[in-house]
């Protein structure tokens, strides 16, 4: 990299970091009135939303990532060339689909379908577990998680697929040369792109945490903590979206900004934990 390309890159990255820092700083600054007045009680006040955000995003990620990885592997390893490009286009199209459509589809089509075909079964036969202890509601944590998973898996899949397709053929050939089969090839290639995989999971998780409209519709906006996944609940972005329009006083507005700050902290915390658990620096 010579000087004429290095300088614009440096300036661009510097401004990007500065912008990021400014956004976080302005949110923190706007939350100050609420944090000063209410203090750490704010966590207790908004616990239903915090709980909901964590539950929904975690379940969504656990559903979405296997789907995304599976789709990427299927597209690259198993599809013939011509059909592969069709699937790639569909995959990218789904990733850019307006999320509000997912929300309404989830509430009106997927919700009733899942309620009759799956949730009722879970409640009737596994109802002794706290997760399925309430009668399935029209809108619930589980419905929101599933809709969210459907929404973020094309996105994660696009990212993973791109990195997976760039793995050099040498790796394939050397594994076959050792006498191992396709399944081993896939496993080794996945561990080869482990860091990129984690990056894709992080981005998908961030998107899931921040998703507002689709989750707002399918979770029921019920300000309550429930251990049952079939009960309605609320997430932080949904709460902010609901209350922002009618936040009259500076204190109300400031509380919503502090909620945003809490969401940012939660997201960062989970990503750090994930990094510690899944991505180890150095040789394995």
């Amino acid at each position, binding site marked *: 990299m010579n000087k004429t390309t290095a300088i614009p890159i440096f300036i661009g990255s510097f401004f990007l970091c500065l912008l990021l820092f400014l956004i976080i700083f302005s949110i923190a600054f706007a939350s100050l009135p609420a944090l000063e007045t209410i203090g750490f009680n704010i966590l207790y006040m908004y616990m239903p939303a915090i709980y909901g955000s964590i539950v929904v995003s975690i379940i969504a990620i656990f559903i979405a990532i296997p789907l995304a990885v599976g789709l990427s592997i299927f597209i690259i390893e198993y599809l013939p060339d011509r059909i592969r490009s069709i699937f790639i286009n569909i995959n990218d199209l789904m990733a850019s689909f307006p999320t509000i459509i997912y929300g309404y589809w989830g509430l009106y089509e997927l919700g009733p379908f899942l309620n009759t075909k799956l949730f009722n079964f879970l409640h009737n036969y596994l109802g002794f577990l706290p997760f399925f202890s309430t009668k399935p509601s029209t809108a619930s944590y589980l419905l929101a998680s599933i809709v969210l998973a459907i929404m973020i898996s094309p996105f994660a899949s696009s990212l993973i697929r791109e990195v997976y397709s760039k793995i050099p053929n040498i790796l394939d050939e050397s594994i076959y040369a050792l006498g191992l089969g396709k399944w081993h090839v896939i496993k080794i290639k996945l561990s080869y792109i482990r860091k990129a995989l984690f990056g894709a999971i992080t981005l998908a998780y961030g998107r899931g945490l921040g998703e507002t409209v689709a989750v*707002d519709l399918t979770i*029921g906006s019920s300000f309550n903590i429930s251990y049952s996944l079939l009960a309605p609940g609320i997430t932080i972005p949904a709460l902010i979206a609901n209350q922002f329009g*009618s936040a009259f006083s500076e204190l109300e507005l400031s509380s919503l900004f502090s909620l945003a700050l809490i969401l940012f902290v939660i997201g960062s915390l989970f990503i750090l934990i994930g990094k510690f658990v899944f991505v180890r620096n150095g040789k394995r």
Partner: protein
Amino acid sequence: MFFLHNTHSTHRKMRNKALSKLVIAVIIAVIIVAGVSMYLLLGNQNNSPSSVKIDVSKISASLVLGGSTFINPQMQAWIQQFSSIYPNIAVTYQSVGSGAGVNNFIKGTYDIGATDVPMPTDLWRYATTVKGSVITIPDIVGGVAIIFNLPNFNSSKNGNLNLTADVLAGIYSGEIIYWDDSLIQSINPGFHFPHEKIVAVHRSDGSGTTFVFTLWLFKSSDIWVNSNIGYGYTVNWPVDKLGGLAGEGNGGVTAYVKQTSFSIGYVEVQYSIANNLQTAAIKNPAGNYVLPTPQSVSLSLQSIDISKFPNATQDWSNITALLLNSPNPSSYPIVTFSYLVVQKNFNDQIKAIAIYVFLEFIFTTGQKQQNIINGYLPLPGNVQSFVLNELKLISFNNQQIYQLL
């Protein structure tokens, strides 16, 4: 070596040429964007005062209104009719809830705010400091219907679903949990209720409909008073702990009730008609169970004493309660005006004229029976005259608009 040196310097010359072309292109683009945006921002203002009669059909303006989802169907109909008469005045209405409507009106995002209850006193005082004198005027009459989803319940077979303020207070405070609670069963002998949990649907956003409903509960039921939930654009809903759902806007509540068996919700009458939902018969102060029909709602209006109305620029927050619980034996107890809030004095003449013309339309042509949507009632004649008189207050630089038209 000589060959290499040559290509390096020509390469650099070509790159410098390309770079300078790029810089010129960027500068031209910036100039174009700046010029276009300046034209758009400044080109449409017209602040010249005039003392001759103004021809309204020549005026072009755009108005943004927003707020109550309660009146949304009626407002959309009015806007459509208005646009056919004054095609150069573009009006849009954003149905975001009364709370957001009032908030955005104060912030200046909306030219007119629509709210189902007048601003509470503190908010009204704050609005007056920000926008100067604020005019609050009722624009339509509506009722809050209680919709429900009871499979196998049919009013022709089982009679109406009878409910009282105490029962509704019990449901929404979480004290009455099951449909077959003795309080509900005893007033509905014609139907055998199943032992199912009531899914209480309320609003997730700042709602005038919630304000009217909770104010009515507060005034009509000791259960509600003792629950300490109170009333307002938003309240804390303990029923959420029992699986209550919160919908966005009147439409959101309607959608949840339609889809959820054994649910109950509160919406403006129009939404129950448009979605073919049964409504409950509510016990009024005379002891009769009444459905929300045009007749039962209009009977509530007969007890209005217009001499109790404040001036449009004063605090209207006590008026909501006037229409609730009318003593007439056949009246529906949960009736309300919906209101528009607008500032009195403008410094943009075109906007002031457009607003005056639009409001004048609503309170003359808009109030004619054929222009009122099913589920609403026009303002009583004396209220219409009262409002038309108060409209004269709208002014530009303290000069009253109606004198110019």
